[in-house]
């Protein structure tokens, strides 16, 4: 059974089915949404059970498409994409559950979410350059309407900024893809990886084009500024998907395209890429420290965490020892998943706080831990996960990235200062919002209800699971990275 194709297109088909249903009430729409994302989740579990292959892509599904230009419908998986596919299906399912209270134009909302899921799964599983680009772009449109239609106060401007920024950002990728095609005569990404078609100046130009696109998407300093604006205005589930899934398009592309398809150029530009990673990590941490809006603060920590991913990949390109290369890539990939889980939880929790208080300013709260212990402790746990506490999801990933950095390119280790800064900003936020004397204004704030617990608790469990026993995840990543890095 072509499970990959089914998983990819099931959401959009469910969305289309919803559009033609006679009854498009909110209740029906959310049922369709939870049903479809739940089914996709189960299918991705089956895909996981089928496993990956130590030598290349597994579970490849291929149909001839535009023969004349060597473009085909190709989907497949390896240890880089499978963890992200699992992350995607989990976050979309939880977002669907969380969103079940949305009544405003629910059917349109659900259709958009389902379209986004198709785009995200397609982006991670596509093995054809053209197909990848189509999925990559479709996700943009979906997110634009998500922000513009269901966001907060200043949503139109934020949505436009997001759209133009990332649209203009992705055009260079198209040029790079065309370049790769011209160099090889096919759009088969496997061919591009096995025998990188470009060399010399052409490879460098293609790399620069790709880096530009992915840097916007990751986002890396100084093209990160759309992120806080988009996050602040996006609806909660939109933020979760944006940070949890769509930022990974950038880091996934960084490995899948930039690192693998223009390896020589990547290694030559390695120091520059590493510098961007280090600056992003530090800059994101300090910029987050300056925020008083919780959602914006978490958005900036994404810049920090994604900076570590860039570092891990750059160090892998620069290091001479294959072990260090593998450790850097392992850590970078694991960090993508950890960030999705932890930041997803944090955005859900801030959204739940905002649903109750209609505010995100730290100064508006105080002493909430005694009032809403579930919300409070879930936030504390997620915050400590985000600042890299051992036993929680970010620690193994960041440990590997820093270990590889110190042994591959020692100067990059200055970025480790950021772990103190993130500690400071999260502790400050916890102290301001949840500790201290209780603000009487929120004396009757309700704690998490069943639906909300159903959304947050799985993420917390996964966060702990990745933290104490990352083996189930890191082993499949390692299988692929040993091949790539070795």
């Amino acid at each position, binding site marked *: 059974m072509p499970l990959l194709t089914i998983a990819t297109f099931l959401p959009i088909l469910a969305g289309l089915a919803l559009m033609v249903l006679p009854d498009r009430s909110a209740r029906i729409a959310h049922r369709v949404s939870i049903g479809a994302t739940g089914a996709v989740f189960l299918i991705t579990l089956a895909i996981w059970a089928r496993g990956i292959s130590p030598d290349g892509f597994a579970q490849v599904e291929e149909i001839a498409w535009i023969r004349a230009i060597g473009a085909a419908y190709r989907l497949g998986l390896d240890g880089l994409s499978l963890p992200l596919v699992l992350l995607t299906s989990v976050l979309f399912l939880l977002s669907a559950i969380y969103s079940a209270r949305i009544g405003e134009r629910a059917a349109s909302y659900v259709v958009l979410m389902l379209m986004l899921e198709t785009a995200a799964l397609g982006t991670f599983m596509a093995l054809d350059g053209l197909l990848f680009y189509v999925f990559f772009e479709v996700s943009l449109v979906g997110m634009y309407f998500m922000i513009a239609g269901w966001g907060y106060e200043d949503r139109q401007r934020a949505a436009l900024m997001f759209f133009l920024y990332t649209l203009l950002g992705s055009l260079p990728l198209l040029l790079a893809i065309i370049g790769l095609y011209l160099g090889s005569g096919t759009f088969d990404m496997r061919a591009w990886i096995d025998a990188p078609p470009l060399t010399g100046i052409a490879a460098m130009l293609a790399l620069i084009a790709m880096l530009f696109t992915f840097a916007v998407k990751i986002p890396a300093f100084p093209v990160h*500024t759309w992120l806080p604006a988009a996050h602040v205005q996006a609806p909660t589930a939109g933020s979760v998907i944006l940070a949890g899934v769509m930022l990974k398009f950038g880091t996934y592309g960084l490995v899948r395209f930039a690192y693998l398809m223009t390896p020589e150029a990547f290694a030559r530009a390695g120091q520059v890429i590493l510098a961007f990673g280090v600056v992003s990590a530090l*800059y994101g941490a300090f910029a987050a420290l300056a925020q008083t809006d919780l959602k914006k603060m978490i958005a900036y920590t994404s810049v920090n965490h994604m900076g570590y991913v860039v570092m891990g990949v750059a160090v892998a390109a620069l290091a001479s020892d294959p072990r260090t290369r593998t450790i850097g890539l392992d850590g970078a990939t694991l960090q993508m998943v950890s960030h999705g889980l932890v930041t997803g939880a944090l955005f859900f929790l801030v959204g739940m706080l905002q649903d109750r208080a209609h505010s995100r300013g730290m100064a508006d709260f105080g002493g909430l831990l005694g009032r809403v212990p579930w919300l409070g402790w879930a936030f504390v746990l997620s915050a400590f996960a985000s600042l890299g506490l051992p036993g929680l999801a970010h620690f193994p990933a960041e440990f590997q990235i820093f*270990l590889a950095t110190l042994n591959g390119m020692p100067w990059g280790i200055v970025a480790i200062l950021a772990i103190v800064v993130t*500690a400071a900003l999260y502790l400050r936020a916890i102290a301001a919002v949840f500790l201290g004397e209780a603000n009487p204004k929120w004396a009757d704030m309700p704690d998490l209800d069943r639906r909300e617990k159903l959304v947050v608790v799985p993420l917390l469990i996964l966060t702990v699971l990745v933290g104490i026993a*990352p083996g189930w995840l890191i082993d499949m990543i390692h299988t692929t990275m040993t091949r790539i890095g070795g």
Partner: protein
Amino acid sequence: MIWLALVLLAPLGAALAVFALRRAPAAIALAGAGLGLIGALGLFAGAPGGAAVTAALPFLPDLPIRLLAGPLTATLALVVATVAAMVLVYAAGYMAHDPERVRFFGTMLMFIAAMELLVLSGDWITLLAAWEMIGFASYLLIGFWHTRDGVPGAATRAFLYTRSADLGLYIAAFLLIGVAGTSEISATLATTGTPALIAGLLLLGAATGKSAQVPMQDWLMRAMAGPTPVSALLHSATLVAAGAILLIRTAPMLPGGALLAIGLVGGITTVAAGLMALAASDLKRLLAASTASQYGLMLVALGAGVPVAALLHLIAHAAIKSALFLGAGVFQHDRDSTDLDALAGAGRARPGIFAGFALAALALAGLPPMAAFFSKDAILAAALDSPAAVWLLPLALLGSGLTGAYMARALKVLWSGAADRPTDAVPLMATGMGGLVVLAATLGFGFKPLEAMLGAPLPEPAWIIPAMGLAVGLGGLALGWVLAPTRLLGPLFGPASGGFEIAGGMQALVARPALALAAACERIDQFLIGTVVLGGVAGGARALAAMVEAVETRLLEAVRAIGRINLSLGRFSRRTDRDTIDGAIFGLVDRTIALGARARRLQSGFIHREMALTFAGIALVIGLLLAAPIYF
């Protein structure tokens, strides 16, 4: 193996049980700590003869979690388990009426499990993980009464101080793993040369954070905002011990340069923190400063190259200082304060507790035959034999003298004054404290066999050593009893009571610059968004809008033109084929013009219409793409 599992899993399982059941937390905690103690005794009993017990659990590729229970680590595990059990007995009484007992005991058990993991760790990742976890537990426990004034700040400060210093441990671990190619601690200790020196200095940095050594001395005194059992367990015997434990375990690797730095940091701390203790106006803060001072002495021993002496003092200090804190907690229970003024006469009101407190105090001052007498002598002997004896010996002697002085001061305050308030019975608190006092008094007799078990017997020190030690101890006690601290310290009193903050301390040196940098980043971002991006986006949007408008106008014109052509065609065809094409074409023209107008309406319409349109557009594009094989 079973003992090893018991040591770690009993407290962990008890913690989970406490949180899950949410009832009888004290009983579950005691059961967990008791089983953990049995496990530690089992490990310790097996340590002398047999090979070290090891275990490896999968974690990261090629970097498994390793546990190691050899003579040294089994001894440390026993120390932790013993103090933990006693403190929990005490806490069962101390916290009996707190509504948040579940959270308290659950967190304490989590801490104990993490601390045991730290002492039993066999690889750097496990050590580092446990090292950070105990910091987290400490944050939760200092912040236990989180609604009280000043408590969140104290918890935040403690975590940030120690985490800053932890960077040293992170980098040292990366370095050692990189050089040795394995994360196993014992294997990395073969590192030599420059990497060993750098790693040694980095480890010292980490140790200064956890063990509150100069320049990280002041978080510990401020950490006293938590419940007293927390101070007794974490901030005297276990968490703060982590720094010294780290250096004891890595001692075989440390080269001369690193040893000298360690010895000097320890020597300076033992004096500076001793002065701080003497100037303190609060009993718990006095004990906290004393803790930093005593760990300074241990670092002196490490710097002198005799880690066993440091270990002995660590063990003696664990029992003594926990006992002192527990005593302070009883007085706090009576007077609702730990301020020295408020505690005047508190000891007289409870002669039994006071006797235990005094015994522990005299033990810390180094009176024979109690535990610290032997360990302090070992440290002085080590300092005397060290190549840096010129520095280390005077500092160590001064630190020992100060110990006597501040303990005498505390005893004097507690004893002099009216015992006017009635007291209630505190059986659990007295039991927990009593056990530790007995250990404080008698542990010294176990030191010889322990040295033998560790395979590092210390030579019998020359008579001059105990004579010197006793002289400074008694001298300090006498001075502290007779003279007020302001007289004794003179001009040093002010800086000492301020914690010897240099140039405004961490707040001015680190926190404010960091916040300023953060504000600068924020301004850069505002600039990027405000000027570059929004300018660009707004410009782009305007250009795009103009483009769309132009395209649309042209489209409309085109439609109209087509319409006109069609119209004239129509006129033409009317003449030629009036009946057949006529209606159709006119219909087409009308529909095309209407479509143009409708397109204009849609463009300015609502989001969901645009969306539907976009969907149709996407569907069309996908359809065209899917159909590509047909027309290519």
